[in-house]
């Protein structure tokens, strides 16, 4: 196995591209990221590993705009993310210039996935060590979409998905609790999924909401704390309701 993992362009005898799989490992070590698609709102949430005291946390934005109607969150190597995001932003404007139309979410996802794939089939380069969650509204139909790409260059659409650390637990939670939501409910579902794997509190999560009218809006720490408090209360009430009736009988 050790002989087949040096160069990206070498298949192993059992059909693996080890460099790509190692890149997926890098993603698994990255911070948790989750995205949920509602009927009129899409929410992205990212775990914020504790910021150093002297660091200006505003300079570390993990959820970014690619265009007015498209946003991206990622898990994995942040330096690789910068390169991909920059290329994607240029492509968004270039598309507008050549065809006078904003990109669709699928188009820009296909573009980013295409870039990631290119680096799995070239000599002397390594794959991008990140998976992205791309959200947005179709510029004409207004339909919301959530897509995920990974280092191998595959992409697909999701109703809700998670990537990065403990993504399996988050995805399990989402599979159990997902239902069609809108507005604040979508936001609460996203934060509840994140809280499964992250210490609660506005200090540890970064959340952004995208709507058709207002584009991407980053939530303030105070807002996140308020919603977390609401979720905690609901949890306590649910626990009490479970215990309550049995106590009475």
């Amino acid at each position, binding site marked *: 196995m050790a002989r087949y993992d040096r160069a990206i362009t070498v298949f192993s005898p059992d059909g693996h591209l080890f460099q790509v799989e190692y890149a997926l490992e890098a993603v698994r070590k990255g911070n948790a990221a989750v995205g949920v698609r509602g009927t009129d709102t899409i929410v992205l949430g990212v775990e914020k590993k504790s910021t150093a005291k002297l660091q200006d946390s505003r300079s570390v934005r993990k959820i970014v705009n*690619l265009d007015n109607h498209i946003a991206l969150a990622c898990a994995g190597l942040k330096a690789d993310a910068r390169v991909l995001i920059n290329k994607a932003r240029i492509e968004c404007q270039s598309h507008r210039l050549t065809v006078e139309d904003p990109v669709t979410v699928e188009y820009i996802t296909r573009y980013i996935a295409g870039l990631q794939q290119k680096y799995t089939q070239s000599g002397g380069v390594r794959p991008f060590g990140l998976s992205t969650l791309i959200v947005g509204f179709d510029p004409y139909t207004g339909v919301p979409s959530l897509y995920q790409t990974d280092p191998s260059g595959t992409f697909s659409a999701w109703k809700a998905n998670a990537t990065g650390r403990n993504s399996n637990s988050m995805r399990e939670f989402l599979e159990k609790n997902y239902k069609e939501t809108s507005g604040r409910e979508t936001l609460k579902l996203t934060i509840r999924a994140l809280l499964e794997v992250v210490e609660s509190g506005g200090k540890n999560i970064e959340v952004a909401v995208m709507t058709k009218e207002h584009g991407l809006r980053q939530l303030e720490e105070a807002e996140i704390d308020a919603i977390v408090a609401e979720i905690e209360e609901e949890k306590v009430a649910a626990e009490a309701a479970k215990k309550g009736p049995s106590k009475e009988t």
Partner: protein
Amino acid sequence: MECVFGLVGNGFSILVADTSAVHSILVHKSNEDKIMVLDSHKLIAASGESGDRVQFTEFIQKNVSLYQFRNGIPLTTAAAANFTRGELATALRKSPYMVNILMAGFDKETGPSLYYLDYIATLHKVDKAAFGYGSYFALSMMDRHFRSGMSVEEAIDLVDKCIIEIRSRLVVAPQNFVIKIVDKDGAREHAWRETVKETTAPPSA
């Protein structure tokens, strides 16, 4: 025959452009909007080769957008004007863009501004400017009546004076004009001055 002119007032900038698209002796359309909204608080009026005019201003607009996404804040008007001038200068000794540009913008820190860029990459920050044959008349009227810090009403009054001069003294005067304004509330269309309306309906029998 294209006329583009502009001026700076009290907390706002105005750009005026004729709206005729002409090819030799034929007027293709008389409602061609030559003042593009570059971003929320910038206007760019261009006159010259019609192909270059659209291609170049759209190229500048997309690059200004890209800067905003990359850096999270919009370009200042001065920066946008200098960037545009840089693009004109780079292309000048290869295959020049034959466009003359007036760029008007409003920045929170420095207020309204107007920049004059011509096709050989001249850049000047000015209070009033004009391009085209109409400039002979517009500049003269502005030299006579312009004061710094005019109100919107006074500025529109001066704009109308210039349009009257252009209409009465230029042998092939443009038929319609569009007026756009940019101030702290953003860039937007202010008014049209029309003598001929583009209609699609045939004349009634």
